[in-house]
């Protein structure tokens, strides 16, 4: 099991969502992906995608407009 961090700060639609999906596609079951960004809509939409994919949303944090979403595959 590995942990991977992705930084999409400053990126806009649809890049944060797409980068999250690309990382999840490459990950193995049990792997943890931590994605950090600043695009406001993605903070809601990445968790929606996690649910649609049937994966585990571990945590969503936000500070000063920068959010971090943690997902377990």
């Amino acid at each position, binding site marked *: 099991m590995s942990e991977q961090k992705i930084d999409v700060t400053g990126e806009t639609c*649809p890049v944060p969502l797409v980068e999250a999906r690309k990382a999840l596609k490459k990950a193995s079951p049990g792997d943890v992906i931590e994605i950090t960004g600043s695009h406001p809509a993605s903070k809601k939409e990445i968790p929606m995608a996690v649910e649609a994919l049937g994966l585990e949303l571990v945590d969503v944090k936000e500070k000063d407009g920068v959010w971090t979403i943690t997902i377990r595959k």
Partner: protein
Amino acid sequence: MADKTTIIVHSGDMDKVYSALIIGNGALSMGMEASLYFTFWGLERLKKDGLEKGPLSKMNMGGLGKKMIESRMEKANVASLERLIQDYKELGGKIIACEMTMEIMGVEKDEMRQDLIDEYGAVGTYIQEARDSKITLFI
């Protein structure tokens, strides 16, 4: 089988090709399958060096308007069409090129981006894709 999105890309306008690729990528990212069926003016964008060449659908002003929008998009850090289409392929998106359009426009396969195209088809291919799709759009 996963839910599917099928989009007809009829327009070759830059802003509309953006819409098609953003929606396609969004569908794939949210766990759906996706197919883009390029026909008529949309097909022009699958020619070699053609992807970024589309005019704006409005206020193109001989390319001036497009330049202005492009500089604003760069400031907003919007991904290029090439990056979006590469991401689309990486996430398993399918690209279908309309054979009849190729015949009408006199385009040969070797003039096309064969690195992107999965299949050459006609209306039956689209219907077959669309009948299994939860979302289908004509752009």
